[in-house]
């Protein structure tokens, strides 16, 4: 069984350089997270006591303002950031999709970039060659596949990245919004492929600002604010609470009824 368990996870960002008093103010304003000064070291409390368990079939949407900690949480689950407190247990294969082609180099051809990215994701050479025709076909890049990626338009690069990412077999899929899909005609095909891709994964954690996507794709949602998870539960309930938060607070630092006020 695939599973993902977070137990009281806290993440702090130490900030080096820059003027102390100024950045203290700025961070409080910009992120709603709490900047602490401990013995000359400034830290941003990016995630506070996050706990939840996801089992096979769970599709969790993370909703919240910019700077609420959604991306940090995804990166922490991916193992990029190690929590200062708490722990994360992972049963299964994690596929993080934040930038679609990791290690992409504009001087290399599409083939070269896909082989590099595939190896970075831990795919075998055989597996990479096996998914290559699918990527060629779906991205519709044709002859361009053999040219350096720097000659591509933005849309073409996005198509390549999208085609590669969605050709994999994800176990636990971590998706950040903005894994986009190019022009309108392509967007249509991309939506279908994305659905299929998400359907193939065992667990999905998805950070998004699009309510429509969240309602369509996810069976659970969590509301984040200032590095805390205010609530986790049914998609409809959480989206409603998010609405209340937006209308009621208007600002980033607002707290809502029923939720623990940030201490």
């Amino acid at each position, binding site marked *: *069984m*695939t*599973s*993902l*368990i977070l137990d009281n996870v806290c993440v702090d*960002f*130490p900030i*080096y350089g820059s003027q102390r008093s100024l950045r203290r103010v700025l961070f409080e304003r910009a992120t709603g997270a709490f900047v602490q000064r401990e013995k000359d070291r400034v830290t941003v409390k990016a995630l506070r006591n996050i706990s939840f368990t996801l*089992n*096979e079939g769970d599709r969790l949407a993370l909703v919240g303002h910019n700077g609420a900690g959604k991306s940090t949480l995804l*990166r922490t*689950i*991916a*193992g*990029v*950031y*190690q929590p200062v407190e708490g*722990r*994360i*247990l*992972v*049963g*299964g*294969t*994690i*596929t*993080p999709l*934040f*930038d679609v082609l*990791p*290690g*992409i*180099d504009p*001087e*290399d051809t599409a083939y*070269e970039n896909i*082989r*590099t990215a595939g*190896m*970075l*994701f*831990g*795919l075998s*050479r055989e597996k990479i060659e096996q998914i290559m025709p699918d990527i060629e076909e779906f991205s519709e890049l044709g002859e361009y596949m053999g040219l*350096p990626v720097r000659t591509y338009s933005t849309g073409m690069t996005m198509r390549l990245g999208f085609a590669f990412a969605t050709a994999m077999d994800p*176990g636990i899929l971590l998706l950040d919004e903005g894994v986009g899909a190019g022009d309108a005609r392509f967007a249509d095909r991309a939506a279908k492929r994305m659905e299929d891709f998400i359907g193939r994964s065992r667990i999905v954690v998805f950070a998004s600002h699009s309510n429509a996507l969240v309602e369509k794709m996810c069976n659970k949602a969590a509301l984040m604010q200032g590095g805390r998870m205010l609530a986790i539960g049914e998609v409809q309930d959480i989206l409603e609470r998010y609405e209340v938060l937006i209308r009621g607070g208007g600002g980033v630092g607002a707290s809502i009824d029923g939720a623990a006020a940030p201490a």
Partner: protein
Amino acid sequence: MQQEANPAPSARTHHDEARPNTMGAREDLIGGLRKYDLWGRLGWLEIKRRYRRTIMGPFWTCVSLMIFVIVIGSVGSGLLSKQTAEYLPFLVAGMIVWVTLQNTLIESVNVFVAGTGLIRQMNFEYSILVYSLVWRNFIVFAHNLLVYLLIFLIFSPEKLGFANLLAVPGLIVLAVNCAWLSLLLGMVSLRFRDLQQLVMSIVQVSMFVTPLFWPPEGLEGLRRIFFVGLNPLYHLLTIVRDPLLGGKLPPINSCIAVTVITILGWALTYALFAKFRKRIPYWL
């Protein structure tokens, strides 16, 4: 990076299967080394990229080395009153090793900065970045061997023989040392960004105070102890250069010194890496 869950046949609930998504220093260094497929590829691609759209390709590094050796060689042989035919081979054998060491040191301060995109995206063996850096510098070394062969064929073909292959073990030891140097410098310079300038100036000065343009016998007394005996770069240079100069065995002192440097260097680097590996993404 995909993380395969350990199959746990005795698992009673699915929670038993789950394991922490963290990686230790040992796992990183050894697991990374095993992925030679990946760091080998990253090293090659970097070399290919560097010389794309050039006519001479990777041989540019040979050309510039050739020019350097011939010009400095002519001046140096005059200054040191040596025969050009004798001095040029000495200079070129030292230079091909030095260039490798020097470029590794200079590039190392950026090894993690260059991997920012990857480090922020996934949990993988950071040592892969280090191995790929060392590997690509040794690919450049292989190119520069051409200059070495050319100079020796012209000036002292009698010093080319199978005994010169004694340089191979020296090269392997040099690579092992380049790896810890690169990891250490990469880590420290990520946290303290001023290290880059320091490394640059140390490398620049070292080129002149290490017996590279002049033979170690040229110094005596305290100066010799200081700039030759106590100079780790000299020992690292010598274990490869001496065999290249007609299959000479490097002095036993240098072999001992290099053994000590390798052990101490790795011990220090390992200790720091074990303690601070998890901080690396935060330092970017």
